[in-house]
């Protein structure tokens, strides 16, 4: 079964994965489009539906949810490493996979 992703709003440049997906093709729910993942992306995470320039807006739900902190290719995983919040500066410092903070001392 091919994994699928969901594009919420016509203006969106990212879609949300509905399954854990390996690199390769995923279908887009609600349209004939498909996108080729350049890396594995987990359920609930986002894939870029087109190339996005550095400092360009990341659009989901039809609104900007952040800004590209580097160039993003179609099919890339869009997350903390390449998308920054326009409000929350600390989120760019979090561990990419676990989301845990890297600036809190536990010693």
């Amino acid at each position, binding site marked *: 079964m091919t994994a699928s992703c*969901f594009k919420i709003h016509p203006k969106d440049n990212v879609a949300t994965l509905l399954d854990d997906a390996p690199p390769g093709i995923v279908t887009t729910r609600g349209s004939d489009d498909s996108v080729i993942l350049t890396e594995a992306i987990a*359920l*609930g*995470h986002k894939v870029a539906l087109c190339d996005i320039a550095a400092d360009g807006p990341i659009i*989901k739900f039809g*609104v900007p*949810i952040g800004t590209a902190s580097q160039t993003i290719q179609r099919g890339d995983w869009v*997350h903390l490493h390449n998308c920054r919040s326009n*409000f929350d500066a600390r989120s760019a410092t979090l*561990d990419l996979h676990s989301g845990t903070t890297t600036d809190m001392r536990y010693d």
Partner: protein
Amino acid sequence: MTNLPTWSGYLRPDGRKGIRNIVLVIYTVECASHVAQAIAQGENDVHVIGFPGCYDNQYAIRLILSLARHPNVGAVLAVGLGCEYTQAAKIADVARQSGRPAEWLLIQDTGGTRTSIERGKQIVTTLRRQIFRETPRVPMGLADLTVGCECGGSDGTSGLVGNPVVGAFFDRLVDAGGTAIFEEIVEMIGLKEIMLERAASANAREQLEAAYDKAVRYCQQVRQYSVSPGNFAGGLTTIEEKSMGAIAKSGSRPIQGVIKVGQQPPWPGLWVMDSVPDDHFMMFGYTNPNDTEGLMDLISGGSQLVLLVTGRGSVIGSAVAPLVKVTGNSQTFARMSEDMDFDAGRVLSGLLTLDQAADELGDLIASTAAGTPSKPEALGHREYFVMYKHQDAPSTEQGCRK
């Protein structure tokens, strides 16, 4: 939910209707918590709340009193140690003034642990018999219901289906004349214009703008936005993204205004609850230290039933008002079905439409209101959490809370 559901509720002297008929044991300092918990241990329909400190905080007292007068509460026992600031006798007085039978005891006057527990159990037994015998049963429907919702442990599915299904139910509730409250103004960040456009009046717009701007100042000051490691790991990248998902739980009806913790909406419809500390003492206390705190806030607003939307999964319940847990993640539902009440993920897999899911959720809520225990309730979850913070609470008479 094609036909509007009705069930039998409990009529309180102030005219509000409850869906449960409980005795609430309230302790006024951590030193009294063991005795209070032991009094309720093994007793049906006896819940416990309380707060930790020997510290007088107006916000916390207002919150406790709103729970002592909650529509699901039939009677109150306040338990103090005896030397703390907060007065058990005054809590019992307020409950009595609301028409509820209420008692209080101070451990230092009663005796030690065992003596106080025995005395407390006698009081609770008497109160429970009294409210069981005397509380009038009345027909109840969605127009009598206030439902609160927050999300916790959100992931990428929460904004896709978990919250939208609740939003579609909230539209049905509001259209039926009921009241819906949603929380977490700190999870509106990035969406100021979208929120303001939904204001039902110029007054509501002004309240929303003030509450939004305060939440931004708060997050800047404490340097923490309302996103957790689990949210990020679940695919949410920014607070703006989480906010768009969070706001979906409010549905699409106009927002009547902003209430603060411990205040009831002055009229039905959709309301926002502001739990952010006020500017004059902003760094004292926390806005959303955990999900339980948020649920207590919603219950303090008069919610007889609360909803938690969780993509990642959760094992909490709530004192005073039953909690129904909704997930948009079918994997989470399968893994944690002993705790999850509703699988909204079926919309993503095409098994249900959003509207069908909202109707089914409405039926589940009606059956829970009619007395069927929710999963957290059946498991014995009765969590509570009372934060200390500073919030002014202006009169609700004009529906105005600036």
